[in-house]
């Protein structure tokens, strides 16, 4: 029982990341009808927003302290980040909270990137076949990740979570299990909560605003919405930018769990696409449900007890589930009729 609970928790945070990326992918696909292979790259760009923010904050000013000397007799150099030098305690507080704070940087940056991408490139591919869309966004993903590689190098850059949530919680003892059985890092709980909030925000936005209503109508029947005299194209741009922000935020908050490197986006993209297809192309609840489902299944499959019966199952479980679901339920778990069928 405790083992099962532990694996459930372990699966949730990965599932959260899958769900967030898949949500954006589905949003873009459902409204714009574009298969965006560069979505993983947006996730990666978000993660590097956090890296950049941290780098900016930790720019250092070098002062010399003439009263002290180093072992070599020269005056001692003291390196303090600018923010600490100017803002004092508030500066060190900012440095500590650099990952959550970088959301402030990531939102405008991702909005801008999403806007430029849609206006500059994706717009011209609405009428082109899906194969062309896949190919051009695939090319874009390569370009983006190579640019990041040129700037930040090829090595992963670890980011630390704020001190307050750096440790792990002994969740098991709350539920009456032996202490030390179910230990779960605080940050993953934060991530899970964050994913929940973002998902809820996106759904609320689509459900309770006029703009969201138009977008949902566009997902259901684009031509009719256009005939009603609504400029659906302009809204598409905003939808794309929102999807970019969602992917970016997922990336920002994931940095303390996985040190970002330039190809993390590609690794997540393949899995997120599987998630979208399992959930059903064009279905937002499907994307979220399938994201968590596959995350949890993956962590169950990596249990030693399961691996003893079916060796190697942890490596292929996601793809296996995708194959089975596509064959049994061609439209995925929540797929609607008439999406991507021609």
């Amino acid at each position, binding site marked *: 029982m405790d083992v099962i609970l532990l694996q459930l928790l372990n699966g949730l945070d990965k599932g959260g990341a899958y769900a967030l990326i898949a949500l954006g992918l589905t949003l873009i696909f459902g409204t714009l009808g574009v*298969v965006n292979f560069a979505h993983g790259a947006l996730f990666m760009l978000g993660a590097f927003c956090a890296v950049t923010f941290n780098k900016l904050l930790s720019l250092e000013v070098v002062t010399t302290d003439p009263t002290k000397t180093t072992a070599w007799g020269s005056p001692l150099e003291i390196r303090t980040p600018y923010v600490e030098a100017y803002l004092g305690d508030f500066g060190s507080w900012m440095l500590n909270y650099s990952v959550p704070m970088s959301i402030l940087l990531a939102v405008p940056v991702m909005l801008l990137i999403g806007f430029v991408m849609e206006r500059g490139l994706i717009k011209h591919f609405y009428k082109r076949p899906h194969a062309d869309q896949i190919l051009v966004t695939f*090319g874009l993903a390569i370009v983006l990740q190579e640019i990041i590689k*040129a700037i930040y190098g090829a090595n992963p850059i670890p980011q630390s979570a704020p001190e307050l949530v750096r440790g792990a919680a002994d969740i098991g003892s709350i539920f009456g299990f032996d202490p030390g059985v179910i230990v779960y890092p605080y940050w993953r709980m934060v991530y899970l909560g964050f994913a929940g909030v973002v998902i809820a925000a996106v759904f609320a936005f689509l459900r309770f605003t006029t703009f969201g209503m138009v977008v949902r109508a566009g997902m259901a029947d684009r031509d009719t919405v256009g005939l009603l005299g609504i400029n659906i194209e302009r809204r598409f741009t905003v939808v794309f930018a929102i999807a970019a922000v969602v992917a970016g935020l997922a990336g920002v908050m994931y940095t303390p769990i996985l040190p970002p490197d330039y190809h993390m986006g*590609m690794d997540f993209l393949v899995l997120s696409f599987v998630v979208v297809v399992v959930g059903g192309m064009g279905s937002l609840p499907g994307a979220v449900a399938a994201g968590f489902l596959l995350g949890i299944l993956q962590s169950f499959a990596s249990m030693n007890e399961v691996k003893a019966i079916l060796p190697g199952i942890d490596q*292929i479980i996601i*793809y296996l589930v995708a194959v089975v679901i*596509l064959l049994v339920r061609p439209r995925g778990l929540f797929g609607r009729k008439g999406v991507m069928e021609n």
Partner: protein
Amino acid sequence: MTTKTSPMRDMIFFFVFAVAVLTMPVWLAPIGAGYPDLLQKFAIYGLFATGFNLLFGLTGYLSFGHAAFLGVGSYSAVWAFKLLGMNPLPAAIMAVITSGLFALAIGYISLRRSGIYFSILTLAFAQMSYNLAYSVLTPITNGETGLRVLRSDPRLFDSSSAVDGPLIANLFGIEMTGYAGFYFCAVVLLIAFFIAQRIFRSPFGIMLRAVKTNQNRMNYTGLNPRPYTLAAFVISGMYAGLAGALLCITDPLAGAERMQWTASGEVVLMTILGGAGTLLGPIFGAALIKYFENIFSAFNEQTLHEIFGFLPDFLEGPVVSVTGLFVGEGWHLTLGVLFMLIVIFLPGGLMEGFSRIGRLFKRSSGKSGPGSATAPAE
């Protein structure tokens, strides 16, 4: 849209192609590509892309998992070396058979869906094969180290011939290294190209094009597209397997990274770059990518300074640092940019570009007769 074809023209076309391929060491020498290692790659990846094109170019089914067949071909070729001896012929045959069977199994399942679902299914199967080759199938694939031929292997037919030095594939005494290796690959490529050309011109090929153009209409006519697409998928898988075998014939080592999805993406790039659906395009695209990979990744700051040395100093610095992003380690950036430009402006690939240029010349020379040279409406 169809170009004028006749058996005679095809024969001439094939003959010219064959001469061009076989004389590659001569005419590619001036641009620094006249050495066997690179030429082998041209031939092998040309073969791989030709096979991919038989599926994607003709039927329009975009497979994102073709590297799996390349990997399976490599592994079975090395196993043929281990069991039967270092002759490349049984290795190639075995690779074609196993990859064909593998493609039959995957194709049978994947072809139940079309469009993006098909792409995801093939991708899923390829990733499964890749992950399994790394983990559970280690006894067969030797995991991360890669599968290689050992001196202690049975090698039924040539175990008696004790060789010193590394084990190299040899065709009845000719060692498959250097130019011998290249010519072996080139001959295989020519045979495969000839078969591909025949498929393009055959009723079967026309059927495959019908699948791409309008599957519904084909269904209404009373034809079931599945057997045709499955046959195309299997043939295309066999081509990939053969390419994988050739990789091992020129260098008897098989690793799982050949099956990764980036490798599948690479063959898609090659085909699109050259022009999907054309005979020559994929080979051209494969050669171009492999050539740039070799040339650009060898560049460094020093060579750039030499190239841009003629510029005034205040210009040279920025120019070198900007171009420096695109070469050496960053040559993938060049690839990505090139690829995007092709998809955006030339969806038909380089072959379309060539025919556009060709048409341009025709039009400018035939201006005297008004209206005589206008292209037919598409």
